[in-house]
């Protein structure tokens, strides 16, 4: 005789009260998920989140109130959940799931892990930990009106990394430095400029005109000549931007004239660039100052941030923000650096001003602070209802898993509108593991194309193994018969190797590297393919995923997949990483920002195939 406890069969209800589950993330999905879990009858829940509460979370992360701003999300989520279910046993960790404390043994405590994350690095990591511990993982994501849920079970389904996911889009250096054609190029430039002036200077974030731009040369030999010439006498490259700015005392007008007048005039001398493009027009501070009209009264109906300032308005904003930021820098003392943050007003003002001035120079319509913030800050719009639906689906999948009904688990997509079959929620059968997955097969292997004479050991570690292949603490041995240790995860042990090149260790075409991440219980064999012919700005390529190779045709659903991976992985260009240029959907750039509000739906409609 069937016995029910509430909606559930007694056996299931009983197992809920004894099993232990882990929720990774206490944000939009996490809050809704925690609520559903306790109301459904889960008694032992652990929740982890490294973040603190921000006022912009309050439109959807309903376990938090205004008074909680600044506090730990995991901690407050736990307290709020206990309010409506005092008998639940909840443990909260204000920590990163990538902390080595959370090892395979930690994961084995749980019968089920549920992700509620917003970035790929953590997703990759939890994916590997769950594979290592052989624990079922429910993965999910939302963006705007769209969302999805899926189940990952070792040996039975695809893991999170079985399907190559589009890497963050980056723009070529010459587009950023010389020939921007879209607002986003100017915004990326402005963020680079922030770092050059106030933050950590990065050789990959140059803002000055790129004299070695191949497009600028009338003849191919010129490019090399220009490159060496600029190194010798280039008053562009000789002094670092920060040092130069410091020498002027961060004088806003001097900075303005260099960036928006002198450098632009230099670009104009590279006349081949402007043969078929509209040439930029340099700005002059004093001219603008003298011809500035009194600012019109801002219309009252829109948000203040949604107004688009005039050129002089941006000049003033530039001046104010430079003054504020330079004094902040000074206060911090010797060797200090500022970190750009979209929620830090002067930092946001600076990028708004600098990017808009550049847009104006390059004949683009200027943008409001509101819109610049969306793009610069990789903001993905978010609402409560989408997260509520997805979190409900997560628990329903979880119940299937706990009932031992893995075959009935599905990937479920939430659409904005019903599809042709009238479905708003579309369940799909789970795919089996991919035969050439470089994570979940028994002996994962990849081939990486790079230049052994130009790739440093540090780059291998940071750019390739950590960023591209998602490892947290890699150990690298060369398969040279001697088991030479190239990289050790122990701090300091192989630091001396960092700035050496791979070829210095005898690595050449056909060499093999054994890479281990012991935390993730993951071993990857890397085959090295030496090449001298990589595209400009491209440091390495993973064979089988070359940028010029069109990605496999995706359904709308897969596009949703890549979009809902979270704001930290948006197809928006990264301003920090180099890597291959990756085009989504056969050349169409899928962005998450829009001058108007939204439109992820738009992207779905543009679709593929």
């Amino acid at each position, binding site marked *: 005789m069937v016995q029910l406890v509430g909606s559930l069969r007694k056996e299931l209800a009983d197992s809920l009260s004894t099993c232990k589950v882990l929720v990774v993330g206490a944000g939009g999905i996490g809050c809704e998920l925690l609520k559903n879990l306790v109301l*459904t009858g889960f008694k032992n829940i652990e929740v982890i989140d490294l973040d603190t509460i921000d006022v912009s979370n309050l439109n959807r992360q309903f376990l938090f109130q205004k008074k909680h701003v600044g506090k730990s999300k995991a901690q407050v989520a736990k307290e709020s959940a206990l309010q409506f279910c005092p008998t639940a046993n909840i443990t909260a960790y204000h920590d990163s799931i990538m902390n080595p404390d959370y090892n395979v043994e930690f994961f084995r405590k749980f019968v089920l892990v549920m992700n509620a994350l917003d970035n790929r690095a953590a997703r990759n990591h939890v994916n590997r930990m769950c594979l290592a511990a052989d624990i079922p993982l429910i993965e999910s994501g939302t963006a705007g009106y769209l969302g999805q849920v899926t189940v990952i079970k070792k040996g039975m389904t695809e893991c999170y990394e079985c399907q190559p996911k589009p890497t963050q889009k980056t723009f070529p250096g010459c587009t950023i430095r010389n020939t921007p054609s879209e607002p986003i190029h100017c915004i990326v430039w402005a963020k680079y400029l922030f770092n050059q002036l106030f933050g950590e200077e990065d050789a990959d974030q140059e803002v000055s005109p790129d004299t070695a731009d191949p497009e600028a040369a009338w003849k191919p030999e010129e490019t090399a000549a220009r490159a060496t010439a600029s190194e010798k006498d280039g008053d562009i490259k000789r002094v670092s931007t920060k040092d130069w700015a410091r020498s002027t005392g961060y004088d806003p007008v001097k900075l303005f004239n260099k960036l928006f007048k002198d450098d632009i005039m230099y670009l104009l001398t590279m006349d081949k660039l402007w043969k078929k493009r509209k040439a930029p027009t340099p700005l002059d501070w004093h001219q603008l100052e003298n011809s500035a009209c009194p600012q019109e009264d801002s219309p009252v109906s829109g*948000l203040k941030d949604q107004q688009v300032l005039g050129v002089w308005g941006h000049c003033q904003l530039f001046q104010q923000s430079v003054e504020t930021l330079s004094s902040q820098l000074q206060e911090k003392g010797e060797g200090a650096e500022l970190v750009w943050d979209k929620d830090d007003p002067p930092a946001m003002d600076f990028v708004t001003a600098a990017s808009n001035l550049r847009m104006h120079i390059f004949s683009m319509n200027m943008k409001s602070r*509101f819109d610049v913030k969306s793009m610069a800050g990789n903001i993905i719009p978010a609402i409560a209802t989408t997260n*509520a639906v997805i979190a409900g689906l997560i628990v329903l999948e979880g119940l299937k898993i706990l009932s031992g009904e893995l075959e009935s688990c599905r990937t479920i997509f939430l659409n904005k509108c019903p599809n042709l079959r009238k479905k*708003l929620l579309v369940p799909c059968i789970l795919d089996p593991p991919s035969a050439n997955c470089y994570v979940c097969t028994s002996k994962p292997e990849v081939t990486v194309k790079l230049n052994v004479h130009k790739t440093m050991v540090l780059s291998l570690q940071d750019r390739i193994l950590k960023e591209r292949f998602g490892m947290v603490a890699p150990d690298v041995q060369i398969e040279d018969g001697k088991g030479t240790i190239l990289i050790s995860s122990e701090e300091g042990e192989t630091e001396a190797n960092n700035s050496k090149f791979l070829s210095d260790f005898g690595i050449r075409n056909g060499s093999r590297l054994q890479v281990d991440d012991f935390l993730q219980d993951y071993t990857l064999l890397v085959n090295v393919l030496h090449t001298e012919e990589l595209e400009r700005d491209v440091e390495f390529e993973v064979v089988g995923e070359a940028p010029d190779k069109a990605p496999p045709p995706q359904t709308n659903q897969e596009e949703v997949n890549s979009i809902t991976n979270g704001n930290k992985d948006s197809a928006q260009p990264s301003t920090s990483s180099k890597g291959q240029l990756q085009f989504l959907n056969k050349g169409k750039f899928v962005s998450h920002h829009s001058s108007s509000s*939204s439109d992820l739906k738009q992207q779905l409609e543009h679709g593929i195939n």
Partner: protein
Amino acid sequence: VKEDPVISEEEAAQYDRQIRLWGLDAQKRLRGSRVLLVGLGGLGAEVAKNLILAGVKGLTLLDHEQASEESCRAQFLVPVTARGQNRARASLERAQNLNPMVEVHADSDRVEDKPDDFFLQFDAVCLTGCSRDLMVRVDQLCSQRNIKVFCGDVYGYYGYMFCNLGQEHNYVEEKPKLVKPTGNSNDGPEAKKAKVDPNETTMVKKTSSFCTLKEALEVDWTSEKAKAGLKRTPVDYFLLHVLLKFRTDKGRDPDPQSFAEDSQLLRQIRDDVLEALAVSGDLLSDDFTSYCFSEMSPVCAVVGGVLGQEVVKALSQRDPPHRNFFFFDGRKGNGVVDFFGPK
């Protein structure tokens, strides 16, 4: 709906992530809307949360029931200490704390006892846990006066949402602006003028028409056309009839405490209902009876999420509404939208 033109800085900061999705105009309309929510069970609590977070002007929680031990477990607004209190009143404090900028009221009266003009103060009415007759009456009364009507319930793993936005519901849809190719060949084939932002969009005005709940429930299945369409018809529609009949006959929903008797009654009602509708008894197997007891929290979350978003869309008059039913089957993970009513 009255629009207060000025959005405060506090609102701009709090609603930032949703303004970036549906725009400032939509948010202003929400801010001017008053909603009545009937029933504070599991589904009602989810809808309340969603509407309060969205930032409506006012939300009235109407429920005559008492908070039981089960309701304390079933929803997250009623404190465990509030057993015996009126459910709407018990939910008030936590509901209000979700967003102090919304005016939340609690009312412990029965819906049936409310005079007609009570409903006129609202822009939208959302009915949960109501009998079929009551829903039909309120739907008729409200839609005549251009008040948007929503109904919804959750039964175990199953749930539905219905809406009647009137015979002429106007809304806007954001569409990409068509960029005409610049045919000017003066500067050469690859010349670029000041680049048009590829993300520019335009608002297109549209209208949608809805029928009453009565019409939606009283579809005639005896016609040849209807019979032919039966194959593509979600069986959830018929399940809804069964569950509404149970509620009317027993004055309550299937109760886990009386599982055996209620299952049997459900099967009986299924036979009666399908026969009365002149459709095959095979449409609904016995299976469903095990899975329609009690409001399941995750199912309330799904249905409440969809329903909540439909209310937001209707009030903000933005984006095409789901017309006119949404059915969710939590066992299969299926969520379908379908129209029932006169063609």
